[in-house]
């Protein structure tokens, strides 16, 4: 009696499709939706590590809005993300263009450029921590030996120096991702466009602006979305190099969230800080989605 039904189900494309999607759906629900939902919920409670919280509405957010450390962390995060992402983009694009040329040892250079990305973040962070050390910095040491400066640079002890130092570390780590992905994008552009434009007498700059850039835009949109997301949520570099110091000048939302939630035990507040990052991340995604993926422009037309 049941066999025909089972057979029918097995032959139904829709049912089979649903069944095949089930594992993925379960994974997504379990490891993405549930933690995110829990995070949102925790943000509205006064949960502590090891103690379930009570619903307190938006009290956490009201406090955070008036908390000078959180305000500073928000500023730091925006500053960090903007500068690091912009530099990573230009540096990455430049490297991609260079690597796309016919240079000697092309594959060697392409492989070596990935190195910073392969090294575990914690390890490269420790390396940068030494490079920026107030007593043992190799940069300071070198400059002193060469006679350019007479005392060590306080890379991590001065708020602005520390911000830029951590940004440099982030850029070093993030550039390979941008460069390699953009390189992949460049290679999808058919050489015939360049030939055609060359016949029309386009200069290299015009070729770049009117051929390369428009055709690369979809890739740029994706790469930069990811790059911004990674940078905005950066944790390891800061945690190892400065722990958010000096004077909280390098605390990012992610590190502050960890400090409050795990070390400090204020799970609800930490969750609220994390959730407060979501609107910014959504904005970045929306921007790339609606702003950079305009088909008309990609196809050489004008924006409407």
């Amino acid at each position: 009696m049941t066999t025909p039904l089972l057979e029918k189900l097995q032959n139904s494309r829709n049912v089979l499709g649903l069944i095949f999607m089930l594992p993925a759906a379960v994974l997504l629900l379990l490891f993405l939706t549930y933690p995110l939902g829990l995070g949102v919920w925790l943000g509205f409670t006064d949960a502590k590590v090891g103690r379930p919280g009570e619903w307190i509405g938006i009290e956490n957010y009201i406090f955070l809005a008036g908390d000078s450390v959180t305000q500073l962390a928000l500023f730091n995060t925006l500053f960090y993300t903007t500068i690091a992402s912009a530099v990573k983009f230009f540096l990455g694009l430049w490297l991609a263009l260079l690597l796309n040329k016919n240079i000697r040892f092309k594959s060697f250079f392409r492989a070596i450029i990935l190195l910073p990305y392969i090294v575990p973040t914690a390890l490269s962070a420790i390396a940068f921590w030494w490079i920026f050390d107030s007593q043992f910095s190799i940069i300071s040491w070198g400059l002193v030996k060469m006679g350019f400066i007479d005392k060590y640079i306080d890379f991590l002890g001065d708020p602005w120096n520390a911000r830029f130092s951590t940004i440099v570390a982030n850029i070093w780590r993030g550039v390979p991702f941008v460069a390699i992905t953009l390189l992949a994008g460049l290679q999808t552009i058919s050489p015939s466009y360049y030939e055609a434009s060359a016949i029309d007498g386009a200069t290299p700059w015009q070729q770049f602006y009117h051929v390369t850039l428009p055709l690369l835009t979809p890739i740029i949109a994706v790469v930069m979305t990811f790059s911004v997301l990674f940078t905005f949520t950066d944790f390891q570099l800061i945690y190892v190099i400065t722990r958010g110091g000096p004077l909280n000048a390098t605390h990012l939302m992610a590190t502050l969230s960890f400090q409050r939630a795990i070390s400090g035990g204020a799970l609800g507040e930490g969750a609220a800080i994390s959730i407060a990052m979501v609107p910014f991340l959504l904005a970045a995604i929306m921007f790339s989605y609606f702003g950079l993926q305009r088909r008309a422009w990609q196809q050489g037309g004008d924006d409407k």
Partner: protein
Amino acid sequence: MTNFNRRNFLGSTATVAAASSTLGAGALSFAPAAQAQTMSFKPEKGAKLRVLRWSRFVQGDIDAYMANVKKFTDATGVEVRVDNEGWEDVRPKAAVAANTGAGPDIILSTNDDANLYPEKLLDVTDLCEYLGKKYGGFYPAAQTYLKPDGKKWIGVPLGAAGAMMVYRQSMLKAAGFDSFPKDTDGFLRMAKALKEKGTPVGFALGNATGDGLWCNWLIWAFGGKLVDKDNKVVIDSPETIKALEYAKELYNYMIPGTLSWLDPNNNKAFLDGQISVTNNGISIYYATKNSPDPKVRELNPDVYHANYPIGPVGVATESHLFFNQMIMKYTKYPQAAKEFLRFMMEKEQFDPWLTAAGGYIAQPLAAYEKTAIWTSDPKHTPYRDCVKNMRPAGYAGKLGYASAGAGADFIVVNMVAEAASGSKTPKEAAERAQKRAERYYKV
């Protein structure tokens, strides 16, 4: 006579630690207060224990600890599994275990952890009263941490990893100081003189969890405190301002870059000969003894330790990393767990363990002041009184989520750093700390 006995005993345990199954509960002839009866709990049938502890700071600690665990298993038949975690990771794990009611039976945690969920912990009053009576009593700070209401013990104190003033004798001499100053005025004069000689002092002002604790000492030394005994935030006080003005002057005599210092920085700078004085655990001295680098070993005879100077309040105001031993209420084997902690705290086990830890850990019980480690090398001695001279992290208030949160958020460290570096005036820094702390202590 006791001295002779102890040495005798130490020598013998060191060699036959594993084979001493006869040293079970009962045979205690070396105890300083031998008249006290040995208490003993009868482990449940088939009992097994899981212990979660912070990972060792020195190898000797865990080696001796595990030898004691083996002795316990041999004596009682109770199997004990010991898991190690970095000390900063124990806090969240312990809290989750307490909340979910599953996990290790015994957790060795830090600072105010036990005060976060006292109702989830097994009452160990009988055990602590016994230990206190037998071994000269628990120091006041240990009582504040683990006997919060003055009656009931919620955990057994284990001790503290102390930080002390570590200094280079030759540099102090060159600056005109024959011994380390005992008060804060002398300390400031010394820092100034050292700076003039080109051998500055250095204290961590970054978000350093351990070495940043010197900021607590400083504020307390001048009579400032985060909260009063009713948990009212009182950090914005004239006493705090005085301490911050002191910090500001001291900062002038420090090596540049201390605002960025995390826990390891002062060790590195000190061992490289760049600073003359810092605050640290015994690890710097330990390194000068055991380092493979001959240049580091050369420092050994020149490295000395001193207690923190006393401030205008006139009493010691030290701040150290405190260790608890908590038995979780959900354990199926409360008697076995109590017996385990009793066993580990008895002289036969505790004494060799302290010794093996090389001075990293100081005892919570007064009788262990006589342990050989504190006198075998006179340079160990200042670390002996860590728990005795210590104030709990949330001084002078009650311990709990508020004190834990305020500590983890570096409120005091940030305040001192802001004022010292001149990024804020002492008054502004104190006001900001007041505001930040009030949030934690609202309730």
